[in-house]
């Protein structure tokens, strides 16, 4: 008691107070029970601005325990500002183990990517979501979009995809590509590239989505049908890349373009840094990998 009295007061485990955690936990259970439905919740102020992942942070804080191993990625990378600061936040307020290895994590908080390494049962993927409502840019009124979900009236979304085809000859939506969950709710998969949409379908991992500013939580349970919207004559397609990763030579992965100079030089590298590093450690080399460069110098 005397030591406790002399210590500076600390935050509750995982930052949030227990009443807030209960409120978020109840919303998560409802979200799991109604896959793809956006459950309103009383989003709190977090020690970071809205838009920096406050929804994902609140979901993670509500589920995390001392035995968890946390991985945080931002556009696939473990070492970018958002990922580093959120990882440090949970190390500070929850004293949990952290990792960059997808396979070792029990909770993966993500901003806009699904790791390349297949997820397994027992893992939970927490998405940071900016705009949870897939119909928002088509219909700005919450009262109307809510009614559209209630009536399963998704014609407008198909019109939008059709207009893409009419204008561009193909569905031009490349990220936040709308999906239908378990044949009922149309859901925004958060601004992940459509490349990742197929990974959501029948995933063994639980997927939770938190939108802090918009105050919504939704979920996709494991082994749930997640189908990207399309047309029979314009089936859903994911992005393809002409060249492998310049560092690890990986194909069939999502690549980021990196500008190298002001003369048009560029390279394509894995967006998933953990996946890329793992492959390089196993001896895979792309054409711009360091070992391949050295002889030329």
């Amino acid at each position, binding site marked *: 008691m005397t030591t406790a009295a002399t210590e500076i007061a600390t935050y509750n485990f995982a930052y949030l107070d227990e009443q807030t955690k209960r409120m978020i936990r109840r919303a998560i259970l409802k979200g799991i029970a109604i896959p793809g*439905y956006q459950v309103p919740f009383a989003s709190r102020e977090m020690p970071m601005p809205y838009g920096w992942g406050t929804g994902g942070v609140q979901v993670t804080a509500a589920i995390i325990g001392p035995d968890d191993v946390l991985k945080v990625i931002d556009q696939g990378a473990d070492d970018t500002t958002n990922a580093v600061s959120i990882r440090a936040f949970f190390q500070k307020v929850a004293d949990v183990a952290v990792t960059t290895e997808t396979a070792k994590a029990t909770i993966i908080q993500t901003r806009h990517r699904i790791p390349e390494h297949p997820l397994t049962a027992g893992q939970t993927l927490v998405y940071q979501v900016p705009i949870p409502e897939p119909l928002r840019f088509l219909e700005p009124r919450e009262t109307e979009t809510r009614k559209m979900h209630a009536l399963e009236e998704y014609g407008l979304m198909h019109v939008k995809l059709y207009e893409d085809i009419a204008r561009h000859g193909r569905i031009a939506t490349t990220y936040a590509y709308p999906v239908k969950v378990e044949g009922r709710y149309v859901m925004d998969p958060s601004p992940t590239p459509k490349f990742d949409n197929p990974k959501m379908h029948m995933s063994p991992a639980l997927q939770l989505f938190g939108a802090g500013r918009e105050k919504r939580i939704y979920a996709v349970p494991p082994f749930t049908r997640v189908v990207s919207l399309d047309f029979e004559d314009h089936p859903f397609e994911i992005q393809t890349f002409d060249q492998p990763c310049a560092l690890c030579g990986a194909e069939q992965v999502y690549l980021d373009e990196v500008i190298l100079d002001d003369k048009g030089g560029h390279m394509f590298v894995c967006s998933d840094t953990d996946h890329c590093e793992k492959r390089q450690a196993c001896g895979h080399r792309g054409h711009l990998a360091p070992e391949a460069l050295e002889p030329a110098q």
Partner: protein
Amino acid sequence: MDQMDVIDGGFSAPVFNAQTVFRAVMDAMARPGTVQQLAELAQPPAPLAATAGAVALTLCDHDTPLWFDAGLQVSAAKSWLGFHTGAPSAATPADAHFALVANPANLISLENFAQGTQEYPDRSTTLILQVESLTDGTPLHLEGPGIEKSATIAPTSLPRHFVEQWKQNGARFPRGVDLILAAPDGVACLPRTTRIKTTEA
């Protein structure tokens, strides 16, 4: 009613116990048909059992009106939950966010509870059913989200005409109630999306 019955028996480590119980319930809800093991973390007064009591402590507070079945309505358990969670009593089952059921066999029909609305299907009652076992009853073969191929649980006791009632509950989707089955050794869940396969020839 002994005063100490009402005060003793809460979580010994409220923050971590609640997290443990929640993760068990979350995993059970995400994977219907699986039994998530749970140690005895709370000691509520009879007829409320340890697991159901722990789930209630984890999820209930002043924001969640509770409905009690007849056995719990007249017991010290009601005061115990009032003391530990601050949750108000629901006047009718349709007002309840959670329903605590010590004797599922005599439960009123599921349609009496809040079903949510088409716009807000989350505004429905979650029933915490206290069952003796999740393996000794009539096997229920389950399918739906969270289940790769099929899953089986055999809870006892369940409400009367449960298979028929559950079919009707599923037909109301996205409205409907969700069940948390609290057995002495763990929890299993039946979210409204889970279907019970009936395999008569």
